[in-house]
């Protein structure tokens, strides 16, 4: 276990550490020039500027919304799959997971066909007389949330399904025989037992959402509005790598803090459920 962890740590940690060290070099170039010593100017510039802070906070907020939406929709889908007759289960699981096989840009373009000004949603709304002019659904934060939730929700489904499969299938029935109605059986028995799956799925979705580049770039508003698009711009357009590294480090810290906080809160409330059974 220890040698494997050491190898993974080295292969993952070393490049990240190298990148992060750039953040402490003077900005404005593609070199990390430490001849005048390390500096905090990049961090001061980013953290002291409401423009950058807004971008980071907006990205954080967006990721939390995507995580919540993915968990809610994903959980319901996983429960439905769990209760499905055996002979359909495999097929339905493949149907849920199949989008993962399609590349993300292709899925995003698919959304453009639906949500675009001349897309199916707008055509339907106009034909039904509900709107006069097409709604601007694409290139908004809403479009990004839809796109990311669509892409990341299968991870919640898989993770929750794995936990649900370990619950005896007759447990909800047992609860109902003790007087719970159907909703209470799910809410008070199945849901708490699936918490480990929810936590694993939510963590994964959150981490991917907060750092995602492709979907916000293709479906979101113009410009560098989110952390990942801003970092990409710093590296590839402005060619200010220390500044980009500083923003990346801040994003990493924000992500880590949120995950630790979330796990801490959930862990405390559901400690008795988080152990493997």
């Amino acid at each position, binding site marked *: 276990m220890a040698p494997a962890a050491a190898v993974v740590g080295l292969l993952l940690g070393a490049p990240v550490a190298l990148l992060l060290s750039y953040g402490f070099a003077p900005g404005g170039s*593609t070199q990390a020039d430490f001849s005048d010593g390390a500096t905090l100017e990049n961090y001061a510039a980013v953290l002291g500027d409401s423009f950058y802070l807004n971008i980071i906070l907006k990205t954080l907020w967006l990721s939390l919304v995507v995580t919540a939406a993915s968990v809610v929709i994903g959980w319901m889908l996983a429960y439905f799959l769990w209760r499905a007759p055996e002979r359909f289960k495999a097929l339905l699981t493949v149907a849920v997971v199949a989008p993962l096989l399609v590349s993300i840009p292709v899925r995003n373009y698919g959304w453009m066909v639906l949500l675009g000004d001349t897309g199916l949603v707008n055509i339907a709304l106009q034909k039904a007389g509900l709107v006069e002019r097409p709604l601007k659904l694409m290139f908004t934060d809403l479009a990004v949330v839809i796109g990311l939730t669509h892409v990341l929700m299968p991870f919640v489904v898989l993770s929750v399904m794995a936990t649900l499969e370990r619950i005896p299938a007759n447990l909800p029935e047992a609860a109902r025989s003790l007087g719970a109605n159907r909703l209470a059986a799910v809410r008070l028995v199945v849901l708490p037992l699936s918490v480990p799956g929810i936590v694993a799925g939510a963590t994964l979705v959150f981490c991917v959402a907060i750092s995602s580049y492709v979907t916000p770039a293709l479906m979101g508003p113009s410009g560098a509005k989110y952390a990942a698009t801003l970092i990409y711009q710093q590296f590839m357009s*402005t*060619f200010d790598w220390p500044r980009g590294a500083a923003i990346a480090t801040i994003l990493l810290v924000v992500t880590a803090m949120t995950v630790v906080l979330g796990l801490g809160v959930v862990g405390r409330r559901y400690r008795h459920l988080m152990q493997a059974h």
Partner: protein
Amino acid sequence: MSKGSRPTKPGTSRRAFMIGGTAATISVAFPPPLRAQQTTIVSTIFGGAFEAAYRKHVVEPFQRKYNAEVILKYGTSSEWVANSLLNRGAPEIDVIFLAYPDSIRAVNEKLGMTLTPEDVPNVLNLHPVWYESYKKQAVGLDYASWGLTYRTDSGIPAPTSWLDLFKPEYAGKVILPNLTTSGGFQTLVMMAKLHGGSEDNIDPGFEALKRLKPNIRKFYLSNPEAGQLIDRGDAVIGAMYDNATWYMTDGGKPIQWIVPKEGALVGMVSLHIAPKTKHLDLCKKFVDFAISKEANEGFCNAIMAGPTNKLATLAEPAASRVPKLDSILFPDWYKIVKNAPRWIERWNREITG
């Protein structure tokens, strides 16, 4: 079922699997035996119709003539510049194909070696600007023109000027490139010049674009995206390159390209040779071949681009579609690249913020 009498499983045993798997991994890890007498160089290219024409008229004839192999990597100009910066000592890309403004960055960072007529004889056949403007560290391959693309079925009369973009009829229907997208800097500088500014005084450009914001549907991030937005009708007019538009027109779409009366600006792709490449001789031959009369003519006719070789002539339909070299406007790219970081910051806050 008693434990002691379990029959052995048919098929591969664990041991056989391990041996087979290890053998397969080792054989994959080693490269196939090198074909005798064939060198390989790595270059870069934009995908799509551009790539198809490039392969047909430049790469494949070159490979046949010199019995060599050219591997083309995909990506964006700025990624290739970043790659070349990081791998200066041992280049991954031998012949770097770049577009503005990354080609000027490459010149500033000396990522391409100085080319002489001894190295690349066809340099003498180029329009001088495509050699001098790169401080002799690269050669231009073909030029594209930056003008207005519009749908002919929008109900709005065809545009004639850059300032038509400001018309209220176009509210929410205009697309322009984001500043960091190809064509972005041309647009900003054009807007500045139309309102009394220049590369040294860019404020009028920003002011004009701020006034234009209500008309903008999106600041697009790539040329294919621009094409799609116009194709699907999310936008009816935008600033785009000519060759990308002709591709759609020839596909039967109601889309046209014009040179606005104030002029079209130039876009150019260039070839740079990494100084520490292991295949210097072949790289020089490749660059020479790419800018030769035959290759230039074939390629530019195929994608409706302007040739850089003086001897190359265009046939119809390219001949009447491609603006003549002396009619296109050249911004000062060195000033643009110098100001780029500050302009990008301003753009983030004032235009897309």
